[in-house]
């Protein structure tokens, strides 16, 4: 006779506000086999777990049903609790009455009714649960970092430091990411390149780190500890091993009119190029969209001047497959293009620039060699207007609903740097709120106002109109003085919102990880597991998880590395005991199951069986290797005789759930 305990969690008011938890506990107490049914404020808390443990001991329970949040959240917590008092952890079932009930429904009556039904289904299932013992699976001692910005670099360095091999896959020809494009960093105003490039070099020289630049992840298979990843090394038409990075080809290339993406298209590069002087790997790349040789078969100058013989016009994309134990996502961000905001004139006025463009305009390695000049006529701007929150905190489809977090600080930085270098320039910053939570952040912003005399005006710019004389009329409101301003500006800088990189969503799909509606990766827990994804073995580093500045990114990168190292340190991880098994008495040996098994976990053997009348017969029957089986259940449906079943999700268990739900 089963002795089942039911424990209904209030989750504070998360469940209790819409589900009458007492009524649920009451209703479930009448289910067959249920000997105890209780509710509690926080079942996952220490005392909640103690409640469950004590009940198991006192009532000698044979099964436990927890009505609480998603099993993806706390199934393990309660399994461990049960195991600690000697109940097999697989005799615990979770009824998801939070994510799939109380959070979805508003009507208490129907939510309660649904919670009871979900509870009944779990009770019906737990009646049929059997004790299971988990096996183990080995961990491949190698990590993959997707994205070679500061987040990816830091994660890779930390993992390598612990002695594990790590590969960085970067889609651009060089690692470095957005930080490489930045001029100075707030709030210390030290040069970004000065602190980033040594790290890039360190990564390149580390014996544990392999950098796959100009590469993309195209396929991910497997599971925690044992991922198989296919990386496409895009053809760069230059042999990486031969190229010395001398740059002669880039000097001689006749195709010089290619927009330079490193300088945000503010100047041009050649068709064969090295993105910037400190690029890692310092290897040239040929842009097939512009190269005359690749387009028309006529030119070949670079090949002629290359003394290393590194140019290879016939190079093709290469695919490499590698096994990894852990994957860290560090795909980063991009500023949005503000061209949907007609009122800011970005798309038709060259002197309206984004903040990242301003970084390049002010950078010593930028298009103007570090002198701030207007893009239109290369003159010194004397009045500059900064507009904050362009596309951030927007409720419409043009922008993003979130605060991009970094704009207040970099705008203060820009304003300050301009006032420092060009004291004759008037700088106006239009802000809605100035958000400066961070060490030395508010002091920094106040310095811009108090010491550098930057005009901070509370209000928003409503219209930017380029005028015939080359000036720009900026119409804005000053909310504090309650007046509408017209500023005769030379340049307008838009602090545009940042968004996750476009490659993130297809990657999330490959990794089977969650994303929010803004395409930021969702962490396993917003407070307690901020650098892990909900999918085991996948970790999150940097702005792919949400807007972040550099120190935060680096902190998160190291945290993700620590989590990955924690996984890689293990020789094996406990594997899922919910695997398939075949009933030899039923099995026909027809091979249907073997054909659908993605892991090759099923083999056949001839076995002797006792038959009626004291005869024996030899039959071919299937057997499943539990270490290889991952428990998908494809075989169970392919099997016509019903011989194949799945632990933890058996035919009878699922049908019991179906029955309970439909009753």
């Amino acid at each position, binding site marked *: 006779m089963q002795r089942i305990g039911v424990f209904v969690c209030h989750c504070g008011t998360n469940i209790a506000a819409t589900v009458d938890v007492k009524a649920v506990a009451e209703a479930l107490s009448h289910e067959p086999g249920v000997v105890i049914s209780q509710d509690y404020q926080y079942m996952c808390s220490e005392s909640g777990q103690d409640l469950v443990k004590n009940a198991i001991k006192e009532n000698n329970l044979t099964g436990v049903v927890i009505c609480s949040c*998603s*099993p*993806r959240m706390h199934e393990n917590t309660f399994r461990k609790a049960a195991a600690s008092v000697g109940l097999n952890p697989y005799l615990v079932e979770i009824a*998801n009455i*939070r*994510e*799939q*009930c109380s*959070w*979805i*429904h*508003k*009507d208490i009556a*129907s*939510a309660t*009714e*649904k919670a009871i*039904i*979900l509870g009944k*289904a779990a009770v019906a299932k737990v009646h049929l649960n059997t004790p299971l013992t988990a096996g183990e699976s080995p961990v491949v001692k190698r990590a993959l970092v997707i994205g070679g910005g500061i987040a990816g670099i830091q994660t890779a360095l930390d993992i390598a430091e612990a002695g594990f091999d790590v590969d960085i896959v970067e889609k651009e020809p060089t690692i470095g990411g957005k930080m490489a494009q930045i001029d100075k960093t707030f709030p210390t105003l030290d040069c970004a390149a000065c602190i980033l490039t040594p790290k890039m070099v360190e990564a390149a020289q580390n014996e544990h780190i392999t950098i796959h630049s100009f590469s993309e992840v195209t396929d991910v*298979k497997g*599971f925690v500890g044992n991922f198989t990843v296919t990386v496409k090394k895009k053809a760069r038409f230059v042999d990486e091993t031969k190229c010395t990075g001398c740059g002669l080809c880039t000097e001689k290339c006749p195709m010089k009119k290619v927009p330079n993406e490193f300088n945000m298209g503010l100047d041009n590069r050649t068709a064969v190029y090295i993105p910037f002087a400190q690029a890692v790997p310092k290897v040239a790349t040929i842009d097939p969209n512009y190269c005359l040789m690749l387009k028309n078969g006529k030119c070949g100058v670079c090949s002629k001047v290359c003394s290393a013989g590194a140019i290879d016009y016939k190079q093709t994309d290469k695919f490499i497959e590698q096994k990894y134990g852990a994957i860290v996502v560090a795909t980063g961000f991009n500023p949005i293009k503000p061209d949907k905001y007609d009122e800011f004139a970005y798309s038709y006025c060259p002197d309206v620039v984004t903040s990242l463009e301003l970084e390049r305009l002010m950078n010593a390695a930028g298009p103007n060699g570090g002198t701030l000049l207007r893009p239109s006529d290369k003159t010194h701007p004397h009045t500059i207007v900064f507009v904050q929150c362009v596309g951030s905190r927007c409720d419409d489809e043009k922008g993003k609903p979130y605060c991009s977090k970094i704009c207040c600080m970099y705008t203060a930085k820009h304003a300050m740097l301009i006032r420092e270098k060009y004291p004759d320039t008037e700088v106006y910053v239009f802000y809605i709120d100035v958000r400066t939570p961070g060490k030395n952040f508010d002091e920094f912003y106040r310095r811009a106002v108090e010491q550098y005399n930057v005009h901070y005006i509370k209000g928003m710019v409503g219209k930017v109109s380029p005028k015939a004389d080359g000036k720009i009329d900026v119409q804005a409101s000053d909310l504090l003085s309650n007046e509408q301003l017209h500023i005769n500006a030379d340049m307008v800088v838009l602090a545009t919102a940042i968004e996750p990189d476009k490659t993130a*969503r297809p990657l*999330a*799909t*490959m990794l*089977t*990880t*969650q*994303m*929010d*509606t803004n395409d930021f990766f*969702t962490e396993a827990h917003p407070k307690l597991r901020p650098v892990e994804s*909900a*999918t085991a073995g996948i970790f999150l580093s940097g702005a792919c998880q949400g807007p972040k500045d550099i120190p935060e990114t680096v902190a998160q990168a190291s945290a993700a590395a620590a989590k990955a190292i924690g996984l890689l340190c293990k020789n094996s991880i406990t594997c899922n005991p*919910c695997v398939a098994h075949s009933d030899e008495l039923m099995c026909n040996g027809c091979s249907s199951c073997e054909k*659908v098994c*993605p892991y090759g976990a099923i083999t056949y053997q001839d076995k002797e069986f006792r038959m009626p009348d004291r005869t024996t017969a030899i039959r071919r029957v299937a057997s499943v290797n539990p270490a290889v089986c*991952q*428990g*998908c*259940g*494809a075989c*169970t*449906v*392919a099997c016509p005789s019903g011989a194949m079943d*799945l632990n933890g*999700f058996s*035919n009878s268990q*699922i*049908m019991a*759930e*179906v*029955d309970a*739900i*439909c*009753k």
Partner: protein
Amino acid sequence: MQVNENFEPVIVAFCCNWCSYAGADLSGTNRLNYPANVKIIRVPCSCRVNPIFILRAFQRGADGVIICGCHPGDCHYTSGNYFTRRRITLLYSMLDFLGIERNRTRLEWVSAAEGAKFADTMNKFVEDVKKLGKNRRLEDLRCRKQ
């Protein structure tokens, strides 16, 4: 067709653990509403869903059955949902051949990131089943609720 306003269909949703169940969780986390008629059964993969389960649900009083899995190509188990797609296509075609209403069954791909799609899918499905009314063509009279 006459729609009974008070009719509350019983909907069984089989959701794969890795994508659609997580997607369902996400729609909860984002507080996206869908009707309480939908009750989710967690399966490791959509390919675990045996046609027997679907018929069983109809037998026991379900008015609609929906299977949700990872998008083709994104199966946690590599290929499970490809098999699902073939099996379920054929099964649904057979049910259709037997004259069972097409809109009582559905297969949708919902990823872990598509909380909104999950809620939309369920809202749409419940609406469609409501239009059809009670399942009569594939019910077991012994299980009929009074």
